[in-house]
């Protein structure tokens, strides 16, 4: 069955979400992955937005986390203070998986969504943290979306907006950060993971038709590829739900 890279990326992320988890998502493909997970693998997962909507039913795809569509059928709708407190307090926060994206990433999963070049005089300016830094600072685990390009997988991010594993090993604990950190990076070429000891990124799986060499050619730093395998292609059922239930208008699938 034919499928697009974007469909595969969405499903690769959705497969990482466990039933019963609280899923924090931002805009675009992360929202799509959260919805796909709920419809396919994790029916008891709960989608939350930083704007304060908890357990949204999402009859239509929101185009922003402030879109009124995030309120549909929600369990509660309050505001930012409430949403971030839910993620930061350890009782609920330990069950949150955050899905984030960025412009740059380093080998420890630290993210830049602020600026390319010098911060005060940037070559390219992006939106900034929004809630990404807040989520990356304290939820139990994060799944990251990236385009796999050399200029995006860099030795050093130009601005560290959202903390990953910082300088590796127990870097988060030394910095005073609670909780876990990045668990996977989903790109248009591969799924990357992080070593449980060193916290360095490694290749978990490349996409059907690709290769570890192709993945490495699209990064400024090298990663371990010895544990890698080819990713399972999407099943007919996964694609059917994604296309017919999750994004029938192809607003985000394109």
């Amino acid at each position, binding site marked *: 069955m034919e499928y697009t890279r974007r469909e595969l990326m969405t499903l690769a992320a959705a497969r990482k979400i466990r039933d019963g988890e609280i899923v924090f998502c931002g*805009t675009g493909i992360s929202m799509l992955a959260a919805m796909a997970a709920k419809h396919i693998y994790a029916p008891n997962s709960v989608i939350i937005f930083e704007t304060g909507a908890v357990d949204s039913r999402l009859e239509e795809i929101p185009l922003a986390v402030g879109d009124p569509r995030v309120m549909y059928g929600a369990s509660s709708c309050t505001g930012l*203070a409430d949403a971030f407190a839910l993620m930061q307090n350890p009782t609920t926060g330990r069950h949150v998986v955050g899905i984030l994206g960025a412009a740059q990433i380093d080998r420890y999963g630290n993210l830049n969504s602020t600026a390319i070049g010098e911060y005060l*005089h940037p070559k390219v300016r992006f939106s900034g943290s929004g*809630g990404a*830094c807040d989520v990356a*600072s304290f939820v139990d685990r994060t799944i990251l979306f990236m385009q796999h390009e050399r200029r995006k997988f860099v030795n050093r991010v130009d*601005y560290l*907006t959202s903390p990953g594993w910082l300088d590796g090993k127990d870097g988060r604990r030394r910095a005073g950060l609670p909780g876990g950190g990045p668990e996977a990076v989903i790109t248009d070429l591969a799924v990357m993971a992080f070593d449980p000891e060193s916290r360095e990124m490694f290749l978990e799986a490349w996409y059907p038709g690709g290769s570890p060499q192709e993945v490495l050619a699209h990064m400024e730093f090298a990663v371990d590829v010895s544990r890698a395998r080819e990713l399972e292609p999407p099943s007919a059922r996964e694609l059917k739900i994604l296309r017919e239930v999750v994004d029938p208008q192809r607003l985000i699938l394109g």
Partner: protein
Amino acid sequence: MRIAPDKVMGLEEAVSRFVPDGAHLALGGFTCNRNPMAAVYEIIRRRRKNLHLYAHSNGQGVDELVGAGCVARIEIAYAGTGRFAPTCIRFRKAIEEGRIAFEDYSNYQMTLRFLAGAMGVPFLPTRSGLGTDILARWGFSEEVRAADPRLPKKKLVVCENPFGDWAETDRVVLVPAIRPDVTLLHVQKAAPDGTCRIAGLAFADMEQARAAHHVVVTCEELVGPEALRDEPERNQIPGVVVDAVVPVPYGAYPTACYRYYDYDPVFLNDYRTAATDERRWAEYLERWVYAMPDHAARIAAVKERLSAIQADPRTGYATGLKR
């Protein structure tokens, strides 16, 4: 803050009284939802200058104020309007071309800063941002901070947990309070004394209103003095914190107002095209802001599109809207 039974006035009067040049300003709403757009356009039309803006994730309102040259400095967590502009276009240009001073925070930090202002404490603690450049890099120098008594002397401060290891926390980030000169909000219903009823997500409107010295509220519906008193638990903002109440139907347009109308994808897509090019941007400002006598005229100019964005009573947005 003002105690009076009737604070109803026109938008021109509210902006001329409460938003002078150089004002420190906060906007309610979020990205493409319930931005106080009518008030934003009135500020632009009056060619206000040197505003200092406090924003969490204000999309459209911030971008238009920045693009029109009204803003000198901005403290911000996120500048984007969802899929319509993943990074706000005029904001991006203003920073890349060095036309505004800026300083970055996270959304929770900004929310807590407004809450600290509302509470009357100098700062609040959070664990957000440890180990990041949001802590390490300042946007405003010590000199800029020293020159404006409305700015704290420092950006963010890391502090050891004074309670030892209580709550299993070594250290926290202290975020300084914000006290805007004025907060602008758009709400669904308001009474003449300023009592507000917001439908749906309140974002950080409650904290932003309570943190400010003055609050200007525009509303879809101005209701009678008793109309919001029967179910006060549904009201988010008490009249005492509000200075001015301005009835402006479609006051959030082109952003959404839950249970009234959706965002207008046609306008926002046209806006993106205009914002990308200097000549078209100047034409946009002339046509849609300077040449418009008021917001009602702007809404009259798009009246054939309003039926498409009417909210469906079942969902609160325009179900099936072509986006």
